[in-house]
């Protein structure tokens, strides 16, 4: 180096800071940089189960777990839609009212006007999509914050729900209809096992084919042991769930629908261009726009999906209680749906999380509710414990976000 103090600094080729490429820069790198993934909530769930089981040995019985699975299906379905909106970094405060309105429309059409139940369900889903598109349009095109648009929706759709149910207030739906069967059907044991086998088989094929293709393309591939470990892990989880549920009355159809929606939406998010665009808009709107993403269309469609999921959740609520009432979708429905998504590791800041968060978060909240019920505690205690868990999840989200920032500025 020269030691001149004035004049032009030395020109010419500068040296590059060389960085040894780490061959196993996978999970550990992600964990260190604050990408915690689903681990905190899985560990939390295990702790919750151990605590409740030690307090009441009926907690982990097939009967209780079956009930738990059935209970979380409706709110969990709503939560899947909430996950999509959270991925954009927005919020939808109307999902509870939209669920209630969905149930009301369903009951009014099928009971009061004698419309075929399947047709009524389709109508409700379309109505949900239209409602969400209105929210999305006002948010994305007019520029009103999503918070306010959906707050107005929360009140407005609740009003419409009450209006539709007037004067009865509650409309009962037939016990043997299509809608009622959605949450009152348990699959025969053999069908449960068949579904489990198909899912594990499909996953195994996907993992192994992906590994072979990556190897052929000369890309770093997961080792065979790691692949097998994942397949066996999934097989154990699904197998255990099916075994437990079959031990009571069989796998509930509603659970299959809920988990199916979670899996399908996850594939859409991770494997399609549309899903990538949702993450991109949630990560950096300006970058997405400059990359040619139609930000407005993505936003409107996500709000439409969220309300459609909410409307379907309302159908499941109506199915479970054999009725649509003024209280359907009210109370803590909205808050539980949002809390489940957040507890499931979906970031409130947008762009991080998956629909599995809705499943895991619903499991956590469902477990707390069910455990409190077994311990015969008041719902006052349940609310306080749910609040603590929610707060822990949000604090973790904020901390890991800070960790990521610190890591980014290394």
């Amino acid at each position, binding site marked *: 180096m020269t030691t001149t103090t004035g004049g*032009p600094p030395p*020109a010419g080729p*500068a040296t590059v800071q060389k960085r040894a490429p780490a061959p196993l820069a996978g999970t550990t790198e992600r964990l260190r940089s604050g990408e915690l993934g689903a681990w905190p909530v899985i560990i939390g769930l295990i702790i919750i189960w151990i605590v409740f089981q030690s307090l009441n040995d009926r907690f982990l019985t097939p009967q209780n777990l079956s009930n738990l699975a059935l209970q979380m299906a409706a709110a969990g379905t709503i939560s899947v839609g909430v996950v999509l909106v959270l991925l954009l970094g927005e919020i939808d405060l109307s999902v509870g009212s939209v669920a209630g309105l969905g149930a009301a429309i369903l009951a009014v059409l099928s009971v009061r006007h004698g419309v075929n139940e399947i047709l009524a369900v389709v109508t409700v889903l379309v109505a949900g999509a239209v409602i969400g598109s209105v929210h999305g349009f006002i948010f994305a095109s007019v520029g009103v914050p999503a918070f306010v648009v959906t707050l107005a929706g929360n009140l407005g759709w609740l009003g419409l729900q009450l209006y539709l149910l007037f004067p009865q207030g509650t409309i009962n739906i037939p016990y043997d209809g299509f809608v009622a069967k959605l949450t009152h059907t348990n699959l025969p044991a053999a069908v449960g096992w068949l579904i489990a086998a198909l899912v594990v088989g499909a996953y195994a094929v996907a993992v192994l084919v992906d590994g072979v*293709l990556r190897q052929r393309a000369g*890309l770093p591939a997961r080792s065979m042991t790691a692949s097998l470990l994942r397949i066996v892990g999934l097989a154990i989880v699904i197998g255990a769930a099916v075994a437990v549920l079959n031990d009571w009355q069989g796998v509930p159809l509603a659970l299959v629908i809920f988990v199916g929606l979670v899996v399908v939406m996850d594939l859409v998010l991770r494997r399609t*261009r549309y899903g990538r665009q949702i993450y*991109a808009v949630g*990560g950096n709107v300006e970058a*997405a726009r400059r990359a040619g993403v139609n930000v407005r269309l993505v936003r409107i469609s996500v709000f439409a999906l969220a309300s459609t999921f909410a409307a379907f959740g309302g159908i499941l609520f109506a199915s479970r209680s054999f009725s649509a009432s003024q209280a359907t979708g009210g109370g803590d429905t909205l808050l539980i749906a949002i809390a489940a998504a957040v507890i499931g590791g979906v970031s409130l800041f947008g762009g991080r999380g998956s629909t599995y968060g809705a499943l895991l978060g619903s499991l956590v909240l469902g477990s707390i509710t069910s455990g409190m019920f077994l311990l015969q505690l008041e719902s006052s205690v349940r609310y306080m414990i749910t609040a603590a868990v929610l707060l822990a999840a949000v604090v973790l989200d904020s901390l890991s976000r800070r960790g990521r920032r610190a890591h980014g500025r290394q």
Partner: protein
Amino acid sequence: MSEVPVLLLSGVSKRFGAVQALSDASLQVRAGEVVALVGDNGAGKSTMIKTIAGVDPADSGEIRFQDRPVSITKPHDATALGIATIYQDLALCDNLDVVSNLYLGKEMTQATVLNEIAMERSATELLTTLSVQIPSIRVPVASLSGGQRQSVAIARSLLGEPKVVLLDEPTAALGVAQTAQVLDLIERLRDRGLGIVLISHNLADVRAVADRVTVLRLGRNAGDFVMADTTQEEIVHAITGAADNVASRRQARQSAVDLERAKREGP
């Protein structure tokens, strides 16, 4: 270096209300050449870049691309011609990994499903040919250093096979080593035969990579220098518009001090 400029602006004017941001300004870039566009704050550098990129089209003036007159009225026009712009504020999605960022908006698909393998393979190839060092291309961009992020942003612009790359302050927020990383990358782009326009406040960076320097002052051309036969003083004079000003007086003082020291320590 070819003789016909790949990009030529002449007589470009742009007015924002009462402010004449550019008046009769011109710029030319040849293939395989780095042109530094320098000037004081408000000299019109960013306005000129935005004119070329189609973000803020010029009021009047001519733009020729590969010796053909072209009209650039929106960003898409510029991209379609083969002009890539990398803005100061990066425009990467922090939550997506390197591959996803590189292919954002132009993902490769196979029967509507993302073809991750093809994208990852060509991303690896691209980054290797540019000698961009990144620990893993499957980590979120948030966990990369500033220089690595800037490298990803530049690499991303190359996927459209551009002829001209516009860089707005690519080293503004970077440390010494990271700046070197980006300057190396700019040299590699030049070696690939691209025409490069580099906006920079840092004359050291400009000296390090630029072949020519175009100086703007108050929206007008204030000089066009070949780097090799120009001193830093000449460029500073052109930027400030006078031989006698704060910057040049400071430099003169500094030179005098150096001279004194050289005399004292000299043989």
